[in-house]
């Protein structure tokens, strides 16, 4: 393993190479290990290459990512080597003779040890392309460097311990004297909406992509409700909105949604799922945690403040809701707390570096344990003198999250079996390892300091994903050189503005919802067939990407469609417990140290059966008083009016002519001639059933 690492980091001595070759020839399992190692490494490189590879139609001259890269020797070399390199990779995988593998492997190395400059250089992309309306502005050289944190600019120094939160680095690019640039002062005057629009339009132009047309009002309204409120719009809202002739009705709707309690409920549901999961242990007071999150989003408290509180919380799980985040993950020497804090809040996958150095980013094993060391003083103490709390049928163990005055390092074992010490250190800053220093409070301070802390980048990336269907990075959990952002400059600027504005969550969401890409339809247009991240293309956001509803969204949307008057607030105990029970049946917990769980709800036969035949659906289709079905049946209008109302309630659009025809047939054939009411009722039920079970219903589009 040590030798493999040496190979990948291009520091294999002649003697090592000889020894490696010998080992590989001698031992089959080492051969397999070596192949696996290079394969992983090759895959990472492949996908990195793929993610910056131009879409086929713009190979020549107009890729937004490639085109802006100045032709440094290294980038040219990488580009020209890509294809043969892939061939080499395939041959690597298939080669049986170890010696061949060694030769090929060694030839690969230089391209893998350092991240490709194409993918990861914010500087290069920051050079504004020539075709913008302000292209005549004078060159403003080096200004960006003043605005960026220093850590972005350094060259890769492979042997040093890079800080955990280091943003993708790249070799220094030579100065670029002749490129026109939009003055930063000019950009700074733009509103955030203008900034987003400018950046995306520029990338569409460069990729020769025509964005999809604007979404019609029904499609847009349904999406913005699902994104902000967490469920579909009630039928009356749909009717009013479609009838509204005001030009600014979308802005008015966004502001209305941001002020509704369901906005905070929805964000609390989403973040609770990410931070503590759907099925935490009995020591976690999920309801208190949700309340904490809801209050935070409701009061629009700065995200930096929320992160600081989550990380440094102390107190009783039922009284201080924020303590439940760490209480949920303190098992196994706080390894889950370390990994999940990094993954969810910083957008960095570091759990693998728990055991070994990350070979291709600069995250080292030491960094994992240095980060872990911040949680060393933390302890979850069970309060045996207090009775368990009853929370809607669940029994919650009273637990107090405390800090103990522990000093010094923690120890971890390297792959070679050496014990090493790790002192609390984040992003290059080490804090005093003394027992009287509150490490988590120090961590909270470090996480929230700077012009563009990683917590801001990660949050912006996730909000973008939530609203537009894809994040800037292929995996939002894992921002790094191996997973470069599609629009690095925009991500950085949005993050900086988010920080400068006091981590204003509502403002960020409002800006993105008002921006041009959010107004587009999810359909492919005439000129953007290639904008298809589903098959692995870089997202260009020239249409809104479809996403499946979560189990919570389906539950609440079914309720909204069938019983528009009913409360679906998270604070409504009855409702939230029923929803929890319904969702819970789809969750499978893996009994592991990583506190993993999986959902069997995502597009399985189990989900289909539940929605087709389950008791919940059956109950919702009963035309009891106060339900939409009963209202519709009692209305005096024609069957066309009634069916139109059902369609608006489920899909936020009127039925298409052929659909209406089929619906009417269902209703007519279901009406027995003698006892009219029950038969007709069944017909409407069947139509509603079909609408609520459709792909169009269960997707956010």
């Amino acid at each position, binding site marked *: 393993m040590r030798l493999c690492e040496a190979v990948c980091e291009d520091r294999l001595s002649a003697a090592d190479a000889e020894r490696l070759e010998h080992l590989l020839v001698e031992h089959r399992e080492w051969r397999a290990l070596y192949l696996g190692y290079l394969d992983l490494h090759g895959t990472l490189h492949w996908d990195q290459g793929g993610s910056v590879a131009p879409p086929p139609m713009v190979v020549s001259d107009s890729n937004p990512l490639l085109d802006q890269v100045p032709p440094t020797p290294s980038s040219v070399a990488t580009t020209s080597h890509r294809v043969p390199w892939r061939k080499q990779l395939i041959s690597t995988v298939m080669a049986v003779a170890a010696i061949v593998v060694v030769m090929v492997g060694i030839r690969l190395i230089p391209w893998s040890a350092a991240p490709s400059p194409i993918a990861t250089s914010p500087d290069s992309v920051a050079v504004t392309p020539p075709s913008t309306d302000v292209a005549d502005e004078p060159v403003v050289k080096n200004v960006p460097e003043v605005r960026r944190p220093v850590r972005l600019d350094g060259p890769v120094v492979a042997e040093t311990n890079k800080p955990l939160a280091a943003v993708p680095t790249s070799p220094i690019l030579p100065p670029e004297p002749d490129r026109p640039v939009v003055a930063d002062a000019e950009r700074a005057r733009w509103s955030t909406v203008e900034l987003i629009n400018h950046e995306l339009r520029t990338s569409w132009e460069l990729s020769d992509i025509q964005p999809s047309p604007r979404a019609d009002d029904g499609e847009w309204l349904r999406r913005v409700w699902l994104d902000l409120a967490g469920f579909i719009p009630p039928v009356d809202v749909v009717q009013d909105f479609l009838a509204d002739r005001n030009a600014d009705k979308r802005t008015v709707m966004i502001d209305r949604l941001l002020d509704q309690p369901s906005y905070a409920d929805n964000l609390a549901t989403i973040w609770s799922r990410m931070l503590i999961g759907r099925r935490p242990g009995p020591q976690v007071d999920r309801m208190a945690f949700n309340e904490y999150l809801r209050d935070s989003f409701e009061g629009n408290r700065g995200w930096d403040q929320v992160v600081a509180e989550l990380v440094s919380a102390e107190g009783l799980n039922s009284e201080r809701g924020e303590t439940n985040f760490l209480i949920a993950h303190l098992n196994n020497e706080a390894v889950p707390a370390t990994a999940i804090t990094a993954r969810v809040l910083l957008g960095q996958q570091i759990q693998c570096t728990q055991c070994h150095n990350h070979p291709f980013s600069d995250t080292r094993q030491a960094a994992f344990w240095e980060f872990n060391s911040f949680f060393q003083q933390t302890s979850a103490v069970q309060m045996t003198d207090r009775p368990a709390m009853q929370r809607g049928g669940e029994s919650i163990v009273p637990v107090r999250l405390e800090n103990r005055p522990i000093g010094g390092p923690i120890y971890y074992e390297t792959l070679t079996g050496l014990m090493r010490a790790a002192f609390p250190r984040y992003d290059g800053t080490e804090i005093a390892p003394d027992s009287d220093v509150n490490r988590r409070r120090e961590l909270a301070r470090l996480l929230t300091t700077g012009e563009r802390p990683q917590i801001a980048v990660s949050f912006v990336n996730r909000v973008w994903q939530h609203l537009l269907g894809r994040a800037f990075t292929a995996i939002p959990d894992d921002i790094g050189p191996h997973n470069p952002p599609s629009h690095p400059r925009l991500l950085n600027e949005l993050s900086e503005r988010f920080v400068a504005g006091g981590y204003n969550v509502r403002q960020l969401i409002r800006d993105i919802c008002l921006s041009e890409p959010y107004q587009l339809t999810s359909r492919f247009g005439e000129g953007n067939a290639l904008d298809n991240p589903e098959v692995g293309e870089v997202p260009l956001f020239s249409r809104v990407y479809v996403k499946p509803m979560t189990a919570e969204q389906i539950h609440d949307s079914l309720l909204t469609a069938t019983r528009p008057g009913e409360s679906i607030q998270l604070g409504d105990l009855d409702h939230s417990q029923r929803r929890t029970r319904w969702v819970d049946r789809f969750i499978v917990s893996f009994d*592991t140290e990583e506190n993993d769980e999986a959902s069997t709800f995502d*597009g399985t036969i189990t989900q*289909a*059966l539940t929605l087709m035949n389950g008791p919940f659906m059956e109950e919702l289709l009963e035309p009891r008083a106060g339900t939409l079905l009963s209202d519709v049946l009692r209305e005096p209008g024609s069957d066309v009016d009634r069916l139109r109302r059902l369609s608006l309630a489920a899909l936020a659009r009127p039925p298409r002519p052929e659909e209406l025809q089929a619906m009417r047939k269902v209703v007519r*054939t279901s009406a027995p001639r003698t006892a009219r009411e029950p038969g007709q009722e069944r017909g409407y039920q069947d139509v509603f059933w079909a609408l609520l079970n*459709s*792909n169009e219903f269960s997707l956010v589009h």
Partner: protein
Amino acid sequence: MNLPTPDGMSRRHFMRHLATAAATIPTMQFISHVQANAADLKKRQKACILMWMSGGPPTIDIWDLKPGSKNGGDFKPIATKGDLQISEHMPKTAMVMDNLSVIRAMSTREADHNRGRYYMHTAYVPNPTVVHPSFGSVVSYEVGAKRSALEIPAYISIGGGGTSPGFLGMAHSPFLVDSTGRINNADMGNVTADRLGQRLSMLSLVEDNFIKSNRGEYGQAHKDIYGKAVNLMTSAQMEAFQVEKESPETLAMYSGEPAQGRGMMMGGGNNFGRSLLMARRLVEAGVPFVEVDFGGWDLHQNVFQTLRDQRLPALDAGIAGLITDLKQRGMYDDVTLVWMGEFGRTPRINQDIGRDHWAASWSVAIGGGGLRGGVAVGETDKDGTSIASSQSYLPGDVWATVAHAMGIPLDTVHTSKRGRPMKIANGGTAIKELIG
């Protein structure tokens, strides 16, 4: 084909209704296709039953004992009908061991539950950029998709947590059931065939319109899964899940307990035997891959007592019962059995009389499907801590052997969504001692 579905409606009856309701829906086409090919069912069909020992079984106490070593533990080896010895607490299996072989030289390096589960199921080490399909999903894709008479999912997992179909897509994900075989919401309740047909034709119209609106893959995937769900709801093959239809004598064969009256299920919480019996029924119905989960092997403490009193009696009866039953039915040459967990357990016995995770040298059992039985492939050293034979084996080799037994060509290559070619079983080699 005229067997009653769970709510008492015959399939033919239902299909007639569907036909009148709407001739256009693809489920309908699928079903008529089924009838045309019903004769396929009569053919002998290849299948694999994976016995998944969740938690990581101590194979040193089951298949590869080390008497005389400090790592040997409490158990003694006994002779078998095959050419190898196994644990004294596996006496029934010993009597049929000429049908089962043990690969004693597994060396797999992933000793974490999640990573081990992934590695053993897919033959690929977890990788951040691609999700590999479990071998069950591969079989669903390669074999299940060609069995047009099969109306229930081609990869069924009994009692387990499920694995990912990866880039092969949700249509090949495992269908999860528990050991009771009860499938929630699979019957239509009070809804008549007329009404279901009416609902489905209406649904189909809306779904097709959405798919036509050209918004990516999700719309079609949703429709495909609904098609599968409807197939399952209306299929007579659903009866395969109903283990209670077996005779008490057959049940007893799998549970190792005396035959009791019908309806009395196996005592002692022996869900393993019951699940294996369900697996046999599913394979008979044409399902090509069934996974049976048997947990409780993460024995960091008190390993010997737990094995002797709980795990091994159930394991022994289940394996022996399954082999005997399959042989009696003339199915054993078509059904490959694989027995494995995430990894083995440390040869060294820890201070809690337990064994910890160990992937460097452990065993997998395999048999049926025409493979050679009763042999030990490879060997570990006298203390069980390393591989002593010249050859060691990876999960890809195990799955390549299964692919060989099932007639899936080993040069099959799948392509990830990113366009990357992936060899079946990660390019593993069928084990020559088993196929020769």
